[in-house]
C-alpha cells in the first residue's frame, strides 16, 4: 500500500475516533503516521499497539479504540460508505458503561439510525441487569422544579462563596518574615550591598485541599439533592480540585458534567448521565465502589469529604460500617450533611445512620439555604483541622 494512501486511512480512522468522543488531536495523528512508518505494518498486532500508543492517552479510552480498530481495519471501505450517513457529533460524557461506549462508537460509525436501534435494546438489557426492578430508570426532569423555587435557590446559591480551610504545601513564596531562608535571593542581595548579609526569607504557600462530594440521589433525598446540585455546580466552577460523585444504587462520577459554565446545561448533562435517580440507596455498596475505584485517585493532598445522605439504606446498613471507617481513615476531614437533622427530635435509629455516625468528624443539617450558608462558613473555618498535617523533619 502506498504510504500516501495509508496516511489518508489513518486520518480517516482518527476522525472516527474523534467522533466517538476520544481526544485525538492533529499532533497525535502525525505521531501515528510517523510511528507506523517507523514500526512497519508487518504484523497486525504490532500495528495495533503502534496506533494505540500514539492515538490514545487515557486508560479508559482503550475499549472504544479496540472496537473501532477491529471494525475499521477489517474493512475501511464499508466505513467509507457509512461515513456519508454521519451526523454531527452529539455531546459525549467522559466515563461510561459498556453499552454507552458501543453506542458512541455506533453513532460515530453509522450515524443516528443505529443509535436509535441501540437505545431500544439497551433499555431492555439494563432492566434485566440492574439491582432491582424498583430502581427507576428514567431521566430526572429538572423542568419540574418550580420557577420560583429555582430562581430563589439560584440567587441564594450564587451568593455563597466557599472559602475552604487551607493546608500547608511544600512550595514556598517570598515573605519578609518567613521561617525559611531564601539563599538565592540572599546571595544576590549580598552582591549588591557588600558587608552585612541581608537575609531574604520565604514561607510555605498554603492552598485549599481537594474537596470530594458524595451525594445521595435516592428517592428519599431527591428534594434536597436537586438544590444541592446547584450548590455543587457553583462549587465546581468556583475552584479547582473538586470531585463530585452521585450515588443511589450505583456510583456515578459527574465532575466533568458539572464543569459546564451554564447551570441548566450542566444539570441536564448530569441528569443524562445518572441512571438511578429516585431509586433506592445502597450506601455500603456504593461507598465500597468509591473506596476501591476512586479513593486513591481523588483523596490525595489532604482531601475533605462531604457526604450528603439521610442514611436510610436499602440494605439496612449492611456493609456500611467497614466502608465508612475506611473512608474516614483515608480523608483528612469527613463531614456528613443530613437533611433529617432539621427535625429537632431526630434520633439515629436507622441502621445506616447508626453505622455512619461514629465515623464522621462533623454532622450538619442541610435542608435549606440557611444551612447551606452555614456549611460554607464551616468549611472555611481553619481551626477545626482534625488530623494534624504531617511535616517534613
Amino acid at each position: 500500500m502506498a504510504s500516501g494512501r495509508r496516511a489518508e486511512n489513518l486520518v480517516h480512522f482518527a476522525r472516527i475516533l474523534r467522533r466517538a468522543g476520544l481526544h485525538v488531536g492533529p499532533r497525535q495523528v502525525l505521531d501515528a503516521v510517523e510511528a507506523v512508518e517507523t514500526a512497519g505494518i508487518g504484523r497486525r498486532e504490532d500495528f495495533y499497539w503502534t496506533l494505540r500508543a500514539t492515538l490514545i492517552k487515557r486508560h479508559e479510552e482503550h475499549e472504544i479504540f479496540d472496537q473501532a480498530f477491529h471494525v475499521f481495519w477489517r474493512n475501511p471501505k464499508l466505513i467509507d460508505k457509512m461515513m456519508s450517513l454521519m451526523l454531527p457529533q452529539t455531546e459525549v460524557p467522559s466515563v461510561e458503561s459498556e453499552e454507552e461506549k458501543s453506542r458512541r462508537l455506533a453513532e460515530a460509525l453509522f450515524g443516528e439510525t443505529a443509535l436509535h436501534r441501540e437505545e431500544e435494546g439497551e433499555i431492555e438489557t439494563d432492566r434485566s441487569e440492574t439491582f432491582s426492578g424498583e430502581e427507576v430508570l428514567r431521566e430526572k426532569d429538572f423542568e419540574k422544579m418550580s420557577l420560583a423555587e429555582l430562581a430563589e435557590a439560584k440567587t441564594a446559591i450564587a451568593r455563597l462563596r466557599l472559602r475552604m480551610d487551607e493546608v500547608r504545601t511544600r512550595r514556598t513564596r517570598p515573605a519578609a518574615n518567613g521561617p525559611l531562608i531564601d539563599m538565592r535571593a540572599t546571595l544576590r542581595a549580598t552582591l549588591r550591598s557588600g558587608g552585612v548579609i541581608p537575609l531574604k526569607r520565604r514561607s510555605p504557600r498554603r492552598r485549599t485541599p481537594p474537596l470530594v462530594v458524595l451525594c445521595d440521589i435516592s428517592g428519599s433525598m431527591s428534594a434536597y439533592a436537586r438544590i444541592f446540585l446547584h450548590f455543587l455546580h457553583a462549587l465546581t466552577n468556583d475552584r479547582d480540585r473538586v470531585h463530585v460523585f452521585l450515588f443511589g444504587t450505583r456510583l456515578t462520577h459527574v465532575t466533568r458534567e458539572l464543569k459546564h459554565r451554564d447551570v441548566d446545561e450542566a444539570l441536564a448533562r448530569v441528569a443524562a448521565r445518572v441512571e438511578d435517580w429516585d431509586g433506592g440507596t445502597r450506601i455500603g455498596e456504593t461507598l465500597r465502589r468509591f473506596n476501591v475505584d476512586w479513593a486513591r485517585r481523588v483523596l490525595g493532598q489532604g482531601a475533605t469529604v462531604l457526604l450528603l445522605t439521610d442514611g436510610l439504606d436499602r440494605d439496612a446498613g449492611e456493609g456500611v460500617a467497614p466502608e465508612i471507617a475506611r473512608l474516614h481513615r483515608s480523608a483528612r476531614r469527613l463531614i456528613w450533611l443530613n437533611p433529617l437533622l432539621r427535625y429537632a427530635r431526630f434520633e439515629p435509629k436507622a441502621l445506616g445512620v447508626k453505622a455512619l455516625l461514629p465515623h464522621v468528624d462533623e454532622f450538619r443539617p442541610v435542608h435549606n439555604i440557611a444551612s447551606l450558608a452555614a456549611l460554607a462558613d464551616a468549611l472555611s473555618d481553619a481551626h477545626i483541622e482534625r488530623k494534624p498535617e504531617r511535616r517534613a523533619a
Partner: protein
Amino acid sequence: MSLPSNIDETVELLTRGNYAADRSLATVIFLALKMGRPLLLEGEAGVGKTEIAKVLADALGRRLIRLQCYEGLDTGAAVYEWNYQAQMIEIRLAEAEGVEDRAGLGKDIFSERFLIRRPILQALAPAVEGPPVLLIDELDRTDEPFEAYLLEVLSDFQVSVPEIGTIKAEHPPIVIVTSNRTREIHDALKRRCLYHWVDYPDAARELAILKLKAPRASENLSRDIVAFVQKLRSLDLYKNPGIAETIDWAEALTALDAVSLDRQLVNDTLGALLKYQDDIARVAGSEAARILEEIRLAARAAA
C-alpha cells in the same frame, strides 16, 4: 550498545535484561527509542514500571538517571541549584582581596563552576556511551506547577538557567515517565509522550517473571504462588498484589523452605502479599482455604 532496529530486537533486548516483556510493551519501547519521544507508563503500583527503565538502561549500557517525584519538588532539587556556601566564600575572599569590580564578581560566582547539577540537567549533558535514560518516577506525586515545568524540558530537551542561559541537550536522553495514577496527569504533558498502560501480567507471564526474579523457588511452588495471586486479583480487594509483591512472597516462602502452599503457610506469610489490614482480614482463614482448594482442583483437572 546501539538501539534496536525493530520490535523483535526490542523483545530480545528486554529478555537479555531479565525482563519478561510482552509484545505490546516492546512495541511502545521500540517506538519511543526510534522516535525520540518520552514514554509515559501508567499502571497500578508494583507492576514493574520503574523496572522497565532500569532494565532498559542496563541492556543499552546507558547511565540511569532517576528523578523521584514528591509533592513540592522544585527546580532546586530537580534541575539545578547554586552552591551557595562556595559562592559565599568566594565573595568573602574577593572582599578580603579588595576586589572592587562588583559586576565582574557577580558574573564570576554565577558561572558553571558553582552550578550543582540535579537529575534533569545531568540528563542533558553529553555522555560517551550515548544519551542516558532519564527516569521520572511517580510523576503523579508531584504537583501541577512542576508538571508544567516539565513540558518545556520534555518538548525541547532544554533548560534555561537565568544567570547562564539556555542549556540544550545535543542528543536528547531516553525519557521514561511513570505514574501510579493517584491523580490524572495533565493532557498537555500526555500529548508529548507515547502512552502505555502497564497491566497485571497473565499467569504464564507472571510465572516467567517469577522464574527470572525468584529462581530459588521450586517449579511446583511457583505455580501455586502464581495461581493464588491471580485468584486474589479477581477478589476486588482494596489493593491488588502487584508483581513486586508476588516476588516478595515467593522469596519469603523460599526462605521458609516451603515446597508447596498450605493453609497455615498462607496465613503466616500473607503480609508479604497484601498490605491493607482490611484485605488481610478478608483473605486470611476461610477465604485463603477456599482459593487453595480451587487451585488444587484446577491443577488436578489440568494434569
